[in-house]
């Protein structure tokens, strides 16, 4: 077989890989995209929320034919204890007017659709093919070796969009093994039920949807959250905690037992009742943030999406960072090619510069200390949700005790749990970590 040479090879057909490949192909570059799944999406797992803005910048009219489930009109945040929750709900009819801001999606369907656009743009996609290693010429990446096709393919640049378990970057020595404290392990199920039931239970119309994010006793003191999203005729429910916390949990709770516990919570169970479970999935989410982002470019290689740790855990954003990093990586390559420059580390540094100027690195930088604060402050996941729930119960139970006494009791419960100094320091820590 003659040595085939491409302008770029993109490994992976998730949001970052598709964004990169689409942008490159659209600009007329000769691109090969390699996907290990049977079809794009068959290996991919997400909550899943699609933020419109990032995709709009790549495919402005995506709403015309993308498989979207429901646009989100209401965001709930719940703090749970074992029997109750205190929550905030934000719902706005402004979110009910197009163009909608975000949607629930089914990743297998969405990725398939995105991939069809990539192929229309002119890229060559090969599925059911695992890239085994990068081909290096000294420091320079010159192509990839696959587990089929008789092997080796060459390109000016290889874009790694191979997801959180980027074995390729590790084998090539671009960065070390990911750390358990920098990734969350999430498990989820998809539960099918009639549309009308979902609409009645969540008080929504035919196309609108609700997102619930949860924290508290459901994670057994581990740093993590639960989530419940409404799709068209299904719900996705899941829970994720830092992998290091799963490992250290003295109760040795399994992820699936944690999920069952969440599903059985008296505030959740009625919402999912009767749902028919059709799939169970698990995934690592790179939540280490700013400090965990590795070197993302070098001689003839670039890293995008989960592979580079591009997730904003504080705001539960990932696919938008993935698509944006994929697009910016591609635009860097396109600009260098147009200027007749070789794709060296020096040229590709423009990718990092573009990321630094974008919301991606700005947001990661803003929350750079949050992972550390949460790691060292389990009270945000245990004490405070419990205190808030007890406070609400004290206040809302009418039992002949006067309100002033109740308020004193609530204040007392906070002080005895954390003392005044602890409360102040917790507030300060959080303020500093998110300012």
């Amino acid at each position, binding site marked *: 077989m003659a040595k085939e040479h491409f302008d770029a090879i993109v490994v992976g057909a998730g949001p970052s890989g598709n964004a990169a490949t689409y942008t490159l192909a659209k600009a007329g570059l000769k691109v090969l995209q390699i996907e*290990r*799944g*049977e079809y794009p*999406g*068959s*290996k*991919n*797992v*997400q909550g*899943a929320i699609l933020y419109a803005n990032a995709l709009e910048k790549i495919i402005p009219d995506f709403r015309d034919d993308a498989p979207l489930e429901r646009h989100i009109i209401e965001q709930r945040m719940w703090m749970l204890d074992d029997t109750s929750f205190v929550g905030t709900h934000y719902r706005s009819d402004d979110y009910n007017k197009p163009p909608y801001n975000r949607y629930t999606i*089914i*990743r*297998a*369907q969405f*990725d398939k659709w995105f991939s069809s656009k990539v192929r229309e743009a002119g890229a060559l996609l090969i*599925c*059911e*093919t*695992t890239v085994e290693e990068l081909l290096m010429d000294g420091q320079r990446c010159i192509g990839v070796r*696959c*587990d*089929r096709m008789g092997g080796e393919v060459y390109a000016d640049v290889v874009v790694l969009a191979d997801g*959180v*378990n980027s*074995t390729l970057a590790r084998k090539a020595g671009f960065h070390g*093994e*990911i*750390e*358990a404290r920098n*990734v969350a*392990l999430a*498990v989820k*199920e*998809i539960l099918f039920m009639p549309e009308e039931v979902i609409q009645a239970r969540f008080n929504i119309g035919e196309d609108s949807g609700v997102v619930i994010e949860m924290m508290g006793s459901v994670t057994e003191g581990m740093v993590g959250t639960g989530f419940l999203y409404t799709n068209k005729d*299904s719900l996705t429910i899941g829970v994720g905690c830092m*992998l*290091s916390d*799963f*490992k250290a949990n003295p109760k*040795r*709770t*399994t*992820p*699936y*037992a944690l999920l*069952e*516990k969440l599903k059985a919570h008296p505030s959740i169970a009625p919402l999912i009742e009767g749902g028919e*479970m*059709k*799939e*169970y*999935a*698990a*995934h*690592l989410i790179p939540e280490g943030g700013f400090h965990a982002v590795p070197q993302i470019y070098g001689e003839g290689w670039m890293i995008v999406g989960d592979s580079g740790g591009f997730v904003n855990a504080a705001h539960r954003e990932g696919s938008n960072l993935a698509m944006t990093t994929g697009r910016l990586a591609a635009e860097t390559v396109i600009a260098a090619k147009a200027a007749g420059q070789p794709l060296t580390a020096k040229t590709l540094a423009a990718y990092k510069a573009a990321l630094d100027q974008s919301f991606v690195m700005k947001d990661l930088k803003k929350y750079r200390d949050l992972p550390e604060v949460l790691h060292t402050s389990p009270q945000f996941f245990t004490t405070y949700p419990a205190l808030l729930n007890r406070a609400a119960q004290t206040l809302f139970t009418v039992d002949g005790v006067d309100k002033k006494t109740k308020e004193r009791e609530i204040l007392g419960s906070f002080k005895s749990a954390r003392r005044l100094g602890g409360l102040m320091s917790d507030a300060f820590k959080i303020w500093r970590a998110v300012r």
Partner: protein
Amino acid sequence: MNVNVEEKLFQNRYKVDHGRPHIQIKNPAVCSNDCQSQACTFVCPASCYKAEGNRTVTLITDGCLECGSCRVICTEHANVAWEYPRGGYGILFKFG
């Protein structure tokens, strides 16, 4: 809480690469003799790793969800050889 994870995995679609597991325990003696926590036996979301009575750990990858947790938590001993399955094999998410 006792949860039957096999029931969950039963809903999933797999194309098993028979006789070619993509994950292997490098040295079983390390699990038996050196690893105190055997965290893989309760952290794996597909329960691929089983703690047997005699302190050995067995691995069956048929239900693997390809999350990578086992490799990442085995940092002390680095005793998990973890590769992606051959192209097309392994879990095939219908929804994802």
